[in-house]
């Protein structure tokens, strides 16, 4: 029992990331009809927004402390971050410690700008082109973005820790009445799951309860009719693209303490997120979220030693296997609308 709960929990954080990326992917596909292979790159850019914010907050100036000596008996050079200088050492240290959550605030305008630039500059010209062209050009864009990051930040993963109070693990075992230390779960992953739930909820609420969201949903259902009603649907879809890229950026920012960002993390997640979207149903928001969590949990179950002993290698292939089965038996996906990309 303990191990089952543990596997479900382990699947949640990866599932949350899949769900957030897939949500943006399917939103773009549902509204704009574009297959965006560069969406993983947006996730990666989000993670590097966090890295940049961390680096900026750690910018320091050097002072020479005459009273202390270093090991060569020279006056000690002390690095003081500007933030600590401005706000006092204690508040400054706290700000630096909280750099990852603070990066979320920076991520909103940055990711929105990147999203709008991407849509207006490139993807807009590909609405009428075949899906293969869309895949190819966004694939090229993903390579370019990833290489720019590699050129600026290097090829090695950059550790970006969570705030100190979230370091350590939560003892679920005691809480649920099992033995202590039976189910340990890092605090930050709990935070990530909660964060993902809030973001998903916010996106749904936005689309469900605002006039803007209503227009977007109408546009997803029948773009032409909405246009005939005199609504400039293209303008709204730009905002949708920006929204999707903010969501992907958020997912990336908050994922940095779990996985130190590197330049190819976007591609790694992209392939799986596509599988998630396909399993959930192209253009279905609820499907993307549900299948994100489903596949995340499934993957962690398949990684259990008992399962691997039974079917060797299953942990490596389970997600792809599920995708193949779903595509062959129910091509529109678990929650997909009838007739969407079903040919």
């Amino acid at each position: 029992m303990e191990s089952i709960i543990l596997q479900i929990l382990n699947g949640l954080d990866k599932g949350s990331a899949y769900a957030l990326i897939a949500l943006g992917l399917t939103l773009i596909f549902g509204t704009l009809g574009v297959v965006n292979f560069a969406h993983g790159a947006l996730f990666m850019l989000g993670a590097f927004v966090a890295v940049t914010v961390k680096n900026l907050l750690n910018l320091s100036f050097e002072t020479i402390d005459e009273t202390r000596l270093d090991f060569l008996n020279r006056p000690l050079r002390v690095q003081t971050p500007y933030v600590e200088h401005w706000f006092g050492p204690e508040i400054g240290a706290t700000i630096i410690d909280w750099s990852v959550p603070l990066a979320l605030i920076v991520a909103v305008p940055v990711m929105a700008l990147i999203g709008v630039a991407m849509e207006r500059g490139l993807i807009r010209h590909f609405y009428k082109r075949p899906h293969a062209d869309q895949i190819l050009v966004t694939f090229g864009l993903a390579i370019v973005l990833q290489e720019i990051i590699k050129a600026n930040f290097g090829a090695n993963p950059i550790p970006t820790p969570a705030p100190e109070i979230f370091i350590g693990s939560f003892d679920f075992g005691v809480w649920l009445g099992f033995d202590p230390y039976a189910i340990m779960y890092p605090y930050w992953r709990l935070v990530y799951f909660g964060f993902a739930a809030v973001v998903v909820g916010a996106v749904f609420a936005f689309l469900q309860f605002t006039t803007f969201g209503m227009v977007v949903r109408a546009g997803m259902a029948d773009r032409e009719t909405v246009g005939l009603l005199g609504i400039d649907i293209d303008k709204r879809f730009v905002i949708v693209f920006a929204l999707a890229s903010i969501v992907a950026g958020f997912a990336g920012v908050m994922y940095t303490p779990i996985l130190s960002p590197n330049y190819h993390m976007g591609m790694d997640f992209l392939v799986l997120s596509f599988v998630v979207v396909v399993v959930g149903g192209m253009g279905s928001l609820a499907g993307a979220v549900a299948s994100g969590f489903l596949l995340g949990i499934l993957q962690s179950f398949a990684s259990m030693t008992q399962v691997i002993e039974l079917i060797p290698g299953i942990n490596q292939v389970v997600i792809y296997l599920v995708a193949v089965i779903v595509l062959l038996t129910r091509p529109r996906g678990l929650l997909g609308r009838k007739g969407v990309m079903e040919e």
Partner: protein
Amino acid sequence: MLGLNKADTRLYVIILIMLIFAPFILNPFPDGSSLAQFNAGYPDMMQKLVIFGIFAVGFNILFGLTGYLSFGHAAFLGVGSYAGVWMMKLLTMNVIPALILSVLAAGALSLIIGFVSLRRSGIYFSILTLAFAQMCYSLAYSVLTPITGGETGLQLSLDDPRVIGTSQTASGNIPVPHFFGIEMGQGITIDVGAWSFVFNFGYYFAATVFALAMFLAIRLFRSPFGLMLRAVKSNQSRMSYTGLSSRPYALAAFVISGMYAGLAGGLMVAMDPLAGAERMLWTASGEVVLMTILGGAGTLIGPVLGAGVIVYLESIISTINEAVLHGWFSGLPAWLDSVFVTIIKPFVGEGWHLLLGAVFMLVVIFLPGGIVEGGQRLGRLFRRDGARGRKNGAPKNGAPKNGTDSAEQPGE
């Protein structure tokens, strides 16, 4: 000649001549000169050029003719490599059985993957092939380690139970791949003045295989079967109205192109007998897509050009560093020199992939027909009757959709 029409014969003869004289053509700069780094006439490079040429030509049979965009073709290349190494381990160091097994193994795998994947089309097909290739990659890394060698890759060793031939040479080394006794590494070097031209047997063997593969591809393009494949691309529902099922044709194209990939994998092993799982990674699949699109999908010569350009530029550009750049612009004023170097530097050396991605995007956006279409546009600009031809109904912007039109006139 050999069932080719006049234009195709001309194209084929040009290809043959280029293949035979490649050691000269690719070695235009004398050794020791500052331009010698742009030479490509050394065996490794020439072998790579023809091998990736085969890979891209095969991929084009699927993508160029039927329009099915596979993102998992590297899996067949990888399986071909593994099969080739195993044949060398168990049977003989002669490369012919290794190549045959490579083609058969890749063909069998592509039959299975194609049978399942072709039930869907469009983006679903791309994702299915991607999923299958990733599965092969993950399995090769984990469970199949006894067969694939896992992370270290599959190599020959001194105690291979080789049925025909010996497991070690008299001097205690691992025997090298050969073709009925002629070793792949053999070759002669001719020194002419400051130039030295290397004639490597391995290259000429690979080039012969390439010539055969290319001949088959031309015949296939011109055959009624090739016409059916184009029908799959242009309109599947109309095809089924006429009572033809498109799936067997698409599957045949998929298996043929998988076998080409396997052949390329087998040749890689014949030149250098080791195989690793990274050959199956999806970025490797992406690379062959880039080659085909860059050259011009659906044309005969396009994929070869694309493969050549990418393989050549990859090895040349990744060796350029800042010092080399400064050397180029040393004649200019210092500030101009540093401006140029700052602009160019991100795109060379380590930044080669950035250049590749950027060029690829530009090609997809502005030149969907690739290099071949670019050449055709240039040719039309310079020919007088070209202008009249355009007026008489050819599309104004001259952009054939995905190169279907340009497939009719290769090499122009």
